[in-house]
């Protein structure tokens, strides 16, 4: 069993989580929690796949996926920002809406055949680095490389630029930000849209690159929920989000692949000979997330890092308080 190949595939599958996590991170930094990630990802995966089937152009598929998911996210934005309704309730119903719409529009799509996928390539010179070159820079999808760029760019945008400062301010102290003449409502609409587009991109990454095709709601298989978990684990920091996403992706991959071979490290592979162990293996990522959340929240308490102060609260102009 070649671990570099497993990790290589793990990075690709982690890219899906990366996009969804960073998207949710932007929305939450502006103070809006969107639990509809799973629904938006499904919308993205379905529309990317069906557009590509219809036009033969995967790039068009990616664009349509991002726009459609972004559009759906604006329903949530309207309900929680303009109508000031509860974010959890609205986010949950967005999940239902997204799942329902994608299943209806994706009906029969699973038998639609194969599509031309986004290109895979290796980066010259960087592939020559031992191990790392093979894992990160050899024969990866172009979206994986885009993910590598997105992480530092998001970090720089949030922490070192003026709009990023405004973003953080809107999530921490919206009334003060409003007093500075920044439109809190418009900012929140915008970042919910960004979150929706990245969730759509995550969906497109599944259906056009990582595991091509449309398998109804199994296409995403709960990864949207994991992305929401990773945002908390990441403590709203894009670098930590990337570490979490890639680690989780690699773990998922490893669990899939470890059950294959007859011999593991020179011994009879227990996961092959006892299929029941497989069920427990598949629990691992979720147990792992819970454990990581326990550790993460301990650490957050000690360092006094927390969620954006205004997360989950509607901003009502002229009302006292935060």
């Amino acid at each position, binding site marked *: 069993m070649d671990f570099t190949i497993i990790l290589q595939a793990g990075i690709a599958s982690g890219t899906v989580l990366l996009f969804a996590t960073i998207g949710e991170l932007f929305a939450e930094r502006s103070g809006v929690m969107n639990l509809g990630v799973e629904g938006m990802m499904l919308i993205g995966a379905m529309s990317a796949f069906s557009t590509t089937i219809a036009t033969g152009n995967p790039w068009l598929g990616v664009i349509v996926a991002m726009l459609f998911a972004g559009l759906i996210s604006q329903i949530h934005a309207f309900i929680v920002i303009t109508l000031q309704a509860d974010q959890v309730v609205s986010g949950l119903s967005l999940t239902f809406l997204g799942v*329902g719409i994608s299943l209806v529009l994706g009906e029969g799509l699973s038998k639609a055949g194969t599509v031309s996928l986004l290109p895979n390539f290796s980066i010259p010179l960087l592939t020559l680095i031992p191990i790392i070159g093979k894992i990160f820079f050899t024969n990866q999808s172009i979206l994986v490389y885009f993910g590598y760029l997105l992480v530092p760019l998001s970090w720089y945008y949030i922490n070192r630029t003026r709009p990023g400062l405004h973003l953080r301010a809107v999530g921490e102290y919206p009334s003060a930000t409003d007093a500075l003449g920044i439109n809190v409502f418009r900012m929140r609409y915008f970042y919910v849209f960004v979150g929706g587009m990245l969730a759509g991109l995550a969906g497109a990454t599944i259906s056009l690159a990582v595991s091509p095709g449309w398998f109804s709601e199994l296409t995403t298989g709960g990864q949207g929920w994991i992305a929401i978990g990773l945002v908390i684990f990441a403590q709203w920091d894009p670098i930590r989000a990337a570490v979490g996403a890639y680690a989780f992706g690699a773990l998922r991959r490893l669990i899939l692949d470890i059950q294959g071979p007859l011999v593991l490290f020179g011994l009879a592979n227990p996961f092959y000979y006892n299929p029941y162990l497989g069920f427990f293996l598949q629990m691992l990522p979720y147990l792992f997330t819970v454990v990581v959340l326990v550790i993460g929240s301990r650490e957050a308490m000690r360092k006094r890092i927390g969620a954006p102060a205004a997360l989950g609260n509607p901003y009502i102009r002229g009302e006292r308080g935060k």
Partner: protein
Amino acid sequence: MRQKLDTLFDALLPVIATLAALAVGAVMLLFLKVNPIVAYAALWDGAFGNSNAFAETLVKATPLLLVGLGICISFRGDVINIGGEGQMIIGAVLATWVGLNFTGLPGWLTITLSMFAGFVGGAIWGGIPGVLKAYFRVNEILSTVMMNAIAVQLMNFLLRGPMIDPAQAELASQIPQTARLEEIFRLPRLAPTRLHLGALIAVILAVLVYILLWRTTLGYRIRAVGQNPHASRYAGIKVQRYMVLALLLSGAFAGLAGATQVFGVNYRMITDGSSSGFTGSAGFNGIVAALFGGLHPLLTIPASILFGALLVGANKMQRVVQVPSALITALNGLVVVFVVSSEIIRKRRQRKREAVAKRENDTPPPPAGVGDTKIQQAEAGS
């Protein structure tokens, strides 16, 4: 007159919201080149067309109501339980184990024990995220979702391994299912339909949950913690304990929902590898029903029947007009969206009315002497 109209409008809001969602659904149907009238007629016929159809609606509504009752408790305590699916599974597993192993006892006792086991199983599966939230500050939305995934794998393991039907274990097919419950251990049917005792239990429990939430100290404290944990702490309420309790009770009701599915409908547990294969997504749809019922246990009863009807009717609609029944999933989401939005609009109208009433009632007469002082001052100034 005006006031009466306002009250009527408020009462009709959920109905209006449902109609609005159906209208959007009609647009989607037109988009799919289906006549919405034919589709909705099929939906209605499938849900209420005859006594069997209506019984089927109530059978579908039962787990929604039970899960929804738990949701009323947890959401009132400001604890978001998305783990209904996992809690149903664990409740069902435990109940089935009791039902298959305690066969020496009288039927009614085994059934009671099984239902209790379901209650306990769900409580355990809900209590774990409760403890994680209260004492380790782990977000319960996430931990309950993770617990769902863990429960599914546990079910898949148990139904293929230790709990597999002995008859299946010998066959090559190895269908992952338990043995069938003996007839005396099944929940009795209420009519010559598939309607079972579980529906009645659920309605009785709805009343009990109402009493719990509004007529007992326990319920008062759960709601107080949900409204304002800080104030509750100052008032001497052990906030963490009530958080755990809210999730634990919520899980318990979901566990009971899982148990009634086995003992009232399927008479055995069977898995297709996913959670919805066993639960029919009742763990999620119950949340929708409770929200539609305004998190009120008694209003959750008609809400569950509505969503049960949509789910049952959707199958008929799929057969008649070949529209994927998943359309109903989208409709469920839309209904909640509209209910929540209309709720906000209702609150705003109410605030506006109160403001108007206030202005009309206490426009105070100008206090005597105020004007005079001004005049005097003006005179003094000139």
